[in-house]
């Protein structure tokens, strides 16, 4: 399959290793990855902060770049959630029925990485990762994309791994995009409880399907010198015995 990677501006700029891992993983499973370099940002920050008029050109741009892709895959539940649930609203705001139609045609072919793997019928991706990990189901993977236990099934199939359950896993980490800055105190109060849950697991690595939430959790773990690191699901799944 020809997979058009939507890397997301966040991963492209701040967490390139997540993109590299996603490429390695998808290629290892026998697919071809293409990277359309005109891509920039899906508009999530603008839409969620209320700057929705400003998101219109970004939505148009995304559709223009990816409209003829066989499948678009992104290692980000929140960006895919935005494309799926809000692109239609933005087209309506722009009063552009042609755009709305193009969005509706493209949407079913835009998948989050776990969704793509599930669609391909893969559970064991041939990964090896001999570490104690815990999985944080991000709000967008859990309640917007409804990934359910698909990410955990992928993790359990990894050789050498020890997966420990995260207490109160379904509680939000407190990131919420610009919420973490606008309501920094409330965000920190939520994060504090998430950190306690993470540390109670005695895990070495926290895994999730959104780098943004991992930046929130990981940023605080690092500040605490907690000895726990964060990794995107793609990074764990990309690990093999020959390539670590």
């Amino acid at each position: 399959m020809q997979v058009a990677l939507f890397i997301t501006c966040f991963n492209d700029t701040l967490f390139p290793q997540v993109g590299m891992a996603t490429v390695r993983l998808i290629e290892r499973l026998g697919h071809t990855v293409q990277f359309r370099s005109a891509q920039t940002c899906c508009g999530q920050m603008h839409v969620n902060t209320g700057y929705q008029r400003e998101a219109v050109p970004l939505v148009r741009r995304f559709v223009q770049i990816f409209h003829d892709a066989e499948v678009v895959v992104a290692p980000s539940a929140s960006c895919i959630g935005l494309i799926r649930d809000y692109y239609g609203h933005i087209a309506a705001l722009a009063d552009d029925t042609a755009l709305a139609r193009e969005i509706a045609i493209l949407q079913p072919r835009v998948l989050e990485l776990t969704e793509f793997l599930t669609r391909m019928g893969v559970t064991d991706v041939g990964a090896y990762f001999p570490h104690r990990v815990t999985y944080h189901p991000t709000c967008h993977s859990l309640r917007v994309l409804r990934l359910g236990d698909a990410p955990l099934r992928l993790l359990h199939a990894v050789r050498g791994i020890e997966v420990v359950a995260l207490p109160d896993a379904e509680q939000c980490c407190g990131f919420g995009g610009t919420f973490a800055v606008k309501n920094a105190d409330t965000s920190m109060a939520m994060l504090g409880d998430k950190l306690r849950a993470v540390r109670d697991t005695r895990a070495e690595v926290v895994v999730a399907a959104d780098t943004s939430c991992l930046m929130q959790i990981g940023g605080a773990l690092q500040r605490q010198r907690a000895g726990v690191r964060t990794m995107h699901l793609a990074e764990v799944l990309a690990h093999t015995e020959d390539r670590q």
Partner: protein
Amino acid sequence: MKPQSVLIELQPKFERNAPAALANTQLRRNMGKATQTIRAKRAAVVDEMPDWEQLRTAGRQIKEHTLYHLDTYLLQLEAAVQRAGGHVHWAADAAAANAIVTGLVQAHGAREVIKVKSLTTDEIKLNAALAEAGISAIETDLAELIIQLAGEHSSHILVPAIHKNRAEIRELFMRTLGIAEISDEPTALAAAARSYLRAKFLSVPVAISGGNFAVAATGAICVVESEGNGRMCLTLPEVLISVVGIEKLVPTWQDLEVFLQLLPRSSTGERMNPYTSIWTGVTPGDGPQAFHLVLLDNGRTNVLADEIGRQTLHCIRCSACLNICPVYERTGGHAYGSVYPGPIGAILTPQLVGVEHARSLPYASSLCGACYDVCPVQINIPEVLIHMRGEVVRQHQDTGGLAAALEPEALAMQLLSQVFGSQATYEMAQRLAQLGQGPLVRDGTISWLPGLLGGWTAMRDLSAVPQQTFRQWWRERDA
């Protein structure tokens, strides 16, 4: 004139109110314990319902249908109530409703009224309006009474005193009810309230209630409660006045079946609430002999006009969204500065009063979506929150002039929209980030950021922007 009455403080600023609430350890413990307990109870009684999702869908559909034909159903309700011997009054806003109720109480020569717990009368600040006319309103719901005695505002739509524990309530009763010594056992506290209230039930001639549901076809009004004090108010006095929002209608008696299953399980986590009172007009020789229904708009028709926002009017005030909300659990209800706190308040309040009067409330959420999952009538709260944020920004841009355009956030968002507008500007910005971060980076880490971004580094480190972006790596690999 917008219905400002919904607000407890003018222009509530959630982000400014929250830090004090977050620092109150007693509040944090009370709220955490209460919300976690009620969440678990709700989850248990919802899990045992095999058709819960179908019930939710039915609840949403009945509300959608009713609101679509609201004009018809309101007139049906009016005719049915009048047929049954009741009187119907129409109130466009809080001031009109308060004037109607005050006039009715005065016409009956009463100086005191007893009240069934009612958010709608809180919304219009009825007690204060009555007090101005020399009429004292006595709250009979235990938690409302606690709030009234403490001179505070409710912090939860179902459990107004959720922010207080029983030790605090014991002290309050000893101070305000003239009780010498009392234990902090719930039964003792309830008994103290009962002896105070029983005398009122038997002597006060006028009662005021809200209504959970109003059946258009028959004119029946329904109040759902736990204590039985509401039932006392609805049956003992000579006169009953019910103030009901126009969105509380259901078309037929049979529709109640759906909501009477959804509401108690979602709100108190009970299979069925202890007292469900339903009455139709006046019955000679039984119960109040005069019944007045005050139908309140107070901004609701504005909500109805908004295609995305109108689902907010489906709300049956169960409070499941408050109990599940990670923000509400930590800040409590007062930080929202509105009669309606929590996720539902964050979308309802700005719509009722106008977004320009409650700009911070749609942002009082991490958009985690837990509220949507538990809502018994499937209100997509995150969707409405995002829509309201758009309204806040658009209203500000359209009326704020140059000053609004020059605010740091607005400038940053405009700039980023330009940056993301082309590959060239985007890649240039990436290079600038790699180069410009220099002074902030120490050992590959950023631990301090200026201005608006300082909230981030208060608790979290930030990894430095890597010197190779993904696209640079891809190009090298491709070459």
